[in-house]
């Protein structure tokens, strides 16, 4: 095995191999058969994964304090004092990310070999996928803002290409364009953020910016930079104002949704905020804004997921909701928890997406869960892996999701204040509810379809099993101290986010208290956003009553853990009650027509799409139409033609003097003579 320092010199190979794979597939893919293309495609990612594992092992036996390796590939742009070399940075955060990204994408590559083999643009698909992984790895390994921006834009481009992969479908092309433009709008703010950093710090190199930002910029400037960078993250990770593109992005092939819209791209925003955390810490206001946005996103998208029927859209909204959790964790000062949740969520959500892909594959592209059901005995492997993923997702104790979500809940309770905690706990229960709603609707109950089952091939099942394993085991990375775990993830990320002990232990750190105090104002504002779901809360409250109610012993953290577990179980129980037990069958129908207004708000995803279309798109079109017709043709062109017209007019007047009469010419001559004589 390559040991010691030199393994890190191969760091640049990690993003480079997928790039070579992509180039190969692009140029020779069409001619080479599907087999070669899949070998090259999966091979390159597998190699990258293996390399990152070696680097990870070498990285582990480095002492914690010097786990920060710089590596400059070559000088890219140099204009005046604006230096932007291509340099890579390896530290615990990026180490964790590249392993996760390359691991998950390797599994997804293997899965999509099975999923896509009948598609005629097989090579082009792997070209885009490899290119995507290349850009994602560049983004994660970036050493300065501009290299991160390269990855950032590249990832956006690949998601555009992959969403509109089936270009024949009008909705796919539309979704692709929508995704690209909305993320591009976020990138606009991110670019401004980079420029502001450059203007303030004089350099865009991460290390020199984040070493000691306090001495260069005051908190007000830090707020502007933080907000701009956060706006970029909002665009990419589909938070509230800019989240409309993610549900539509489900037009992409399912493995793409699994890779891009679950595991990797959408988490880029969280990674960015985590990476620039030192600046965020400088301005508490921006942290609050991040927290609140995260909370709002989590809550709203969870409510929407309750009522949706398309299996992939539910998962999309659940991704948006989980991302909301991560941003909330960042907002309340627990970046380690956010990253931990990111990792666990990646495994679980990828599994869920691939599982749903298998279901859709089986039912020949049937997306609507209403006409699924009873698939349990037909595709058992998918059912079991899907259930493990669902359990992990909804935070059932023992599995991955529980530990990471609990860390977030704890941090919110400690730093965020009671109301934020209450809201997020409700969201947690909703997560449990809609995840298991899919399972009960799809796998249990009577068969609501009649097409011949298309059994997923082994190539598709293996990744599912592996991911299930990861989802189950993943949690033990960060078992909190209270439950006797080593909380290895926080220690591992210590160099990035300061010592973990401060966050995980029960008594809130001094910074935490200050945050809580100021927090009342922000909470009030989120109050009226929550009132519309009062109704639903009523429903969950009475089920809580018949849950186990014994008073938990031990420290408040144990209590918190218990409450979150209870909420998770209540959500699952409710879903079971609604969709499996015979008498519960008509309750959802009764509920939906009783609260009709609330129901269709939720089904139309809070009308975000319609509002955006009316406010932005139509006005923009009108404005450009106006500019074109009124200003360009009418004003400027007219002026130009006016000048030409007047010349022509003048000419014609003069020409009318030619009467053709001999006499007339004679008189003109005589007049001339007179003038001459008078002159003399």
């Amino acid at each position, binding site marked *: 095995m390559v040991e010691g320092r030199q393994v890190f010199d191969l760091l640049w190979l990690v993003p480079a191999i997928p790039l070579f794979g992509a180039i190969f597939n692009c140029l020779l893919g069409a001619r080479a058969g599907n087999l070669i293309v899949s070998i090259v495609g999966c091979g390159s990612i597998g190699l990258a994964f293996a390399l990152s594992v070696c680097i990870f092992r070498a990285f582990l036996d480095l002492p914690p304090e010097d786990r920060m390796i710089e590596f400059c590939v070559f000088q890219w742009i140099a204009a005046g004092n604006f230096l932007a070399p291509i340099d890579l940075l390896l530290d615990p955060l990026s180490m964790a990310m590249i392993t996760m990204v390359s691991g998950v994408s390797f599994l997804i590559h293997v899965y999509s070999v099975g999923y896509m083999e009948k598609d005629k643009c097989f090579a082009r698909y792997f070209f885009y996928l490899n290119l995507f992984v290349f850009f994602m790895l560049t983004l994660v390994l970036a050493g300065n803002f501009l290299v991160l921006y390269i990855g950032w834009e590249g990832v956006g481009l690949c998601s555009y290409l992959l969403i509109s992969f089936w270009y*024949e479908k009008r909705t796919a092309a539309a979704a692709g364009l929508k995704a690209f433009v909305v993320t591009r709008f976020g990138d606009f703010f991110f670019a401004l953020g980079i420029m502001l950093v450059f203007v303030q710090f004089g350099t865009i190199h991460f290390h020199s910016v984040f070493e000691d930002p306090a001495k260069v910029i005051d908190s007000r400037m830090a707020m502007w930079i933080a907000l701009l960078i956060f706006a970029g993250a909002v665009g990419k990770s589909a938070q509230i104002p800019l989240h409309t593109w993610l549900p539509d992005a489900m037009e992409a092939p399912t493995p793409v949704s699994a890779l891009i819209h679950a595991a990797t791209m959408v988490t880029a925003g969280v990674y960015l905020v985590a990476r620039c955390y030192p600046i965020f810490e400088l301005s508490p206001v921006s942290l609050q804004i991040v927290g609140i946005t995260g909370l709002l996103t989590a809550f709203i998208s969870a409510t929407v997921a309750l009522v949706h029927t398309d299996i992939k859209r539910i998962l999309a909204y659940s991704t948006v909701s989980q991302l909301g959790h991560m941003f909330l964790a960042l907002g309340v000062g627990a970046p380690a928890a956010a990253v931990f949740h990111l990792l666990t969520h990646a495994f679980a959500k990828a599994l869920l997406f691939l599982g749903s892909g298998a279901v859709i594959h089986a039912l020949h592209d049937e997306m609507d869960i209403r006409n699924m059901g009873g698939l349990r005995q037909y595709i058992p492997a998918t059912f079991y892996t899907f259930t493990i993923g669902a359990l992990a997702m909804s935070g059932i104790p023992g599995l991955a999701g529980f530990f990471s979500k609990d860390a977030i809940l704890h941090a919110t309770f400690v730093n965020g204040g009671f109301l934020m905690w209450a809201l997020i706990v409700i969201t947690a229960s909703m997560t449990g509810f809609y995840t298991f709603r899919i399972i009960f609707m799809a796998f249990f109950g009577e068969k609501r379809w009649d097409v011949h089952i298309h059994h997923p091939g082994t190539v598709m099942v293996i990744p599912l099993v592996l991911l299930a394993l990861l989802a189950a085991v993943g949690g033990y990375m960060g078992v909190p101290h209270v439950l006797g775990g080593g909380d290895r993830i926080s220690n591992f990320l210590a160099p990035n986010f300061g010592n973990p002990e401060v966050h995980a232990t029960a008594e809130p750190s001094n910074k935490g208290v200050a945050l809580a105090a100021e927090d009342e104002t922000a909470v009030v504002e989120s109050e009226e956003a929550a009132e519309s779901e009062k109704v639903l809360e009523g429903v969950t409250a009475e089920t809580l009553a018949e849950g186990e109610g014994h008073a938990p012993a031990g420290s408040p953290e144990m209590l918190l853990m218990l409450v979150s577990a209870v909420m998770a179980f209540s959500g699952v129980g409710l879903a079971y009650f609604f969709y499996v037990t015979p008498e519960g069958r008509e309750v959802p129908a009764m509920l939906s027509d009783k609260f009709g207004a609330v129901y269709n708000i939720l089904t139309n995803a809070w009308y975000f799409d319609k509002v955006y279309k009316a406010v932005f798109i139509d006005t923009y079109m009108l404005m450009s139409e106006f500019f074109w017709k009124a200003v360009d043709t009418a004003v400027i062109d007219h002026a130009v033609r006016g000048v030409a017209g007047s010349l022509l007019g003048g000419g014609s007047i003069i020409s009318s003097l030619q009467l053709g009469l001999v006499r007339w010419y004679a008189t003109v001559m005589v007049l001339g003579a007179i003038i001459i004589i008078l002159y003399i």
Partner: protein
Amino acid sequence: MDVSNWPILSMLIFLPAVGAALIFFIPWRGDFLPKTLALLVGAANLWLSIVLFRSFDPTSADMQLVEKSAWIPELGASYYLGVDGLSLFMVMITTFMVPVAMLSSWDQEGRRQDLFYGFLLLLETGLIGIFLALDLLLFYAFWEVMLIPMYLLVGIWGGTNRRYATLKLIIYTMGGSLLMLVAILALYFFHHAQAGEYTFDITKLYETPVPPHALLPMGLAFFVAFAVKSPLFPFHTWLPDAHAESPMAGAVDITGLLIKTGAYAFLRFLLPLFPEFSTSYAPVVVTLALIANLYGAMLATVQDDLKRLIAYSSVSHVGLVILGIFVFNVQGIDGAVFMMVSIALCSGGLFMVVGMIHKRSGTKEISQLGGVWKDMPLLAGFFMFFTIASVGLPGLSNFVGEFLIFVGAFKVGVLYGVLATFVMVLTAVYLLWMFWRVMLEKAPVRARPWQDLSMVETITLTIPAIVVVVLGVYPKILLDRIEPSALKLVGQVKKEAAQMDYAAKENSIRLAKTERGESE
């Protein structure tokens, strides 16, 4: 062979002219021979410019390979050529784009192709002359020479109402340049009043302080002439017509070359000759450039004619270039020069692709196109490549130029930076929407599927594509050489306008702007 004593610059200018003469005056039978000759001459010129590139010393900022000889001694006009960081790449992109344009119209039907190629070579002479001339009269001469082949190229081989388009093009530019001639003469006499000797040589004219009362009219005259040629906002209406009606290769030249002359002339003549005018009126010009930038992008969204759409996108990009020039800092000017080169490649590439679609479908209307991807995947690949390059994906050449200009604008004024950067969203909107309407979706039923790219067409598209990638990945080859001249220019402008230090006044970052904050 020892190259240093060759008069490279004059050869660069007059080789195409010789080629054109050969084509015109020798009665060729058929088109093939003159076309190959033209291509050879173009390639030779390209090789010459590469020799020039190699013998160009990147460290020094002043003029190199200078050639000076008496032209009209009585007038004091000298045949004075020189190349520096700014003009080197203009020449190279010209010599590069002309053969590419020839290749792209290789199998273009239509009569008298040999004349077409001859005029193309004449156009190249005019353009290179402009970039190398350091004598105002010589510059003006080449400035007018360039118009004639342009008129004939678009006028004879153009689209349907080409007469109107070419006439508008010529009268527009001619009007502007006459103003400039007046200003040149005024400068000429002012110089005589001070230094006592008549000369058109720029280096001497740089020092002549222009009396304040005459400063505005003369500066304005120069500005209008260059604003018309590099279509800046109020004077841009000739560009969409000229593009919509231009022959396929001709369009490439308009975007690729003609537009750059205006922007280059700003750098070479307006800024150093009238520093006070440039600095005092910079905010006005910058706002005009911003308007052009956003306005061009907006208009491009609603166009139905493909070539007109790309014309407006050129208006938007050129707005950006001029913005880069008038922010007077190294990043801005570096970005502007780099952007000029990359526009020529990206928009040029887009035009060639549109030309190929136009040739097959016979129509430029987007409404009648659709689903081209299924019929022509190779062309779709190139179309996607050039669209993404124009949108400004990092790693391709447009991004480097754009980002440098954004940084330059941001350093000078936050509001300028914000408005300039916003265009990247609009560019994405109209380009990708166009890409969607033309390429994706179901193809309307067609008499016969269009056959994909021929060998010649693939070559014509791959060459600029490779250069775009190379410039995107390794822009240092350009940036290092542009930098010294840009620094010299900035110094020249700043030193002259010391009392109105533009940068100091502007770069107090005003943070009051609310629309940037993402506060919920």
